[in-house]
C-alpha cells in the first residue's frame, strides 16, 4: 500500500482539480476518479493510502462504493473519508457504520483537511 497516495473520487472536474492542487502541494500523489466504478477499479489496482470519496456520484451511491471497498479483502484496509454535501446526522451515522474513517461536509476547510489527513491514513479500519 502506498502511504503517500490518495485516490480522489469526485464527479465535479473543477473540485477534482482544486483538490488535486491542494493535495499535491501537501506532498501526496493524487489519482482522480469521476465515478464509483472507476473508483472501485483504481482502488483495487493501485492500493492507495486513502480514498477521499464524494458521496454523490453519478453511477452509484457513495455508500455502495464504501461497502464494496470494505467487502473486498484487497481494498478493505484502505481508509475511506466521505466528502458530502449533506450535513445530516443520519447520513453521518450511515457513512461511519459502513466503515468510513471520517465524514466531512463540503466545502471543507482545506487547511484543516491537510492537517487531518495523516490521522485519517493511520486510522485503523472499522473492525
Amino acid at each position, binding site marked *: 500500500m502506498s502511504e503517500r497516495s490518495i485516490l480522489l473520487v469526485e464527479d*465535479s472536474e473543477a473540485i477534482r482539480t482544486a483538490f488535486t492542487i491542494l493535495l499535491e502541494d501537501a506532498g501526496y500523489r493524487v489519482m482522480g476518479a469521476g465515478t464509483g466504478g472507476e473508483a472501485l477499479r483504481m482502488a483495487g489496482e493501485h492500493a492507495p493510502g486513502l480514498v477521499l470519496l464524494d458521496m454523490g456520484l453519478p453511477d452509484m451511491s457513495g455508500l455502495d462504493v464504501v461497502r464494496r471497498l470494505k467487502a473486498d479483502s484487497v481494498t478493505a484496509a484502505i481508509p475511506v473519508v466521505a466528502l458530502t*454535501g449533506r450535513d445530516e446526522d443520519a447520513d453521518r451515522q450511515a457513512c461511519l457504520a459502513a466503515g468510513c474513517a471520517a465524514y466531512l461536509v463540503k466545502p471543507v476547510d482545506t*487547511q484543516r483537511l491537510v492537517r487531518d489527513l495523516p490521522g485519517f491514513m493511520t486510522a485503523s479500519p472499522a473492525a
Partner: protein
Amino acid sequence: MEHLHVHLQGDPGTAQRLREVLAREGFRVVEPPPEKPAGAIVVQVRANGINGASAEVEMEARVEELERSVLELRNLDVAKSQFLTNVSHELRTPLTAIVTYGEILRDGLLGEISARQRDAIESMIGSCRQLLAMIEEILTYARSTATTIDIRPGEFGLREMVAEVRRMNESLLDRKNLTFSVELGESLPPVWADRDKVAHVLRNLMGNAIKFTPEGGWVKVQARAAPGQPGWLQIEVADNGIGIEPEHHELIFREFAQVDSSRARIHHGTGLGLSIARRFVELHGGRIWVESTLGEGSRFFFTLPSTEAVPAEGEAPRGAGGAAG
C-alpha cells in the same frame, strides 16, 4: 343535481331497479363506459327488492378520486424532497469549487500573493460561505414544510451540543469580545428529541444572539425543568443585545415576515431561521417564544421533552422495558 354520473356495480336486476328509482326522482343517470371515467361515483348495489321510496339500498360511494389525489400529493411530496436534496447538492458543488480554489489562492499554493490580494480572497470565501448558509436555510425551510417530515427522536445531552454550536461561532464571539456562558442544571435528564432538528434550533438561536449583540456584550444559554410541565425541559438563550419591539414578538416566528428589512440587510439573513425553529420545536410538541425589551436584550425560550417525559398513550419512549430509538 341534474346529472348523477354513476357506475352501478353488482346484481344487474337491482341495478336496473335503482336506475328506475333514480330516474323517477329526477336524476339523469349517465351510463359510463366500462372504464370508470374520472369524476364518476361508483355505487355498489347490494340490496335486493328495491321498491320505490322504501328502497333500502346500501350505497358505498367510494370517492376513488380523493384517494388518488392523496396518493398523488404524497408522491409529489416525496418528489419535492428528492428535488430539494438534489438542488442542495447541485448548488454546493460549484460553491465548493469556488471556496476551495479561493483557499488555495489565499494560501499561496499557486504563487505568492500580496496582503491586499489576500484580504480580497478572504472576503470572497467569507461571502461564499454566507451564501451557502443561506441556501441551506432556504432548503431546510422548504423541507420543513413537507407534510411527511419525520421526527427521529433519540437521547442526547445539551452540553455537548451547546459546546459544538459555540465552537462554530468561536471567531465571531472573539471578534466581538462577547462573554459566553452556559448554565445547565447538573441533575437535568437528557433530551428525548430529533438531534438534527434541535441542533438547528440551537444554531439559529445562539447564532442570532451572537449576531444581534454588540461588542462587549454577553450571551447565555440555560436549561431547567419546564415549569408546570413534568418531564419537559425549558431551554433559554439570552443576550443583552439590540432587543425586539413588543409588536414583533409574534411576527418574527412567521415565515417571510422580516421585522425590518434594514436589519436583515445589515445582518444578511433570509428571515426564515426562526420560523424553521418554531416548526421544529412544534413537531416535538414543544413551544417557542421570546421575551425582549428593545435596546436591552432578548430571551428566547423553547421546550422539549426529556427522557422522563410522560410517554404518549400506547408507546413508551424509553425506560418502560423498551428498546428505544
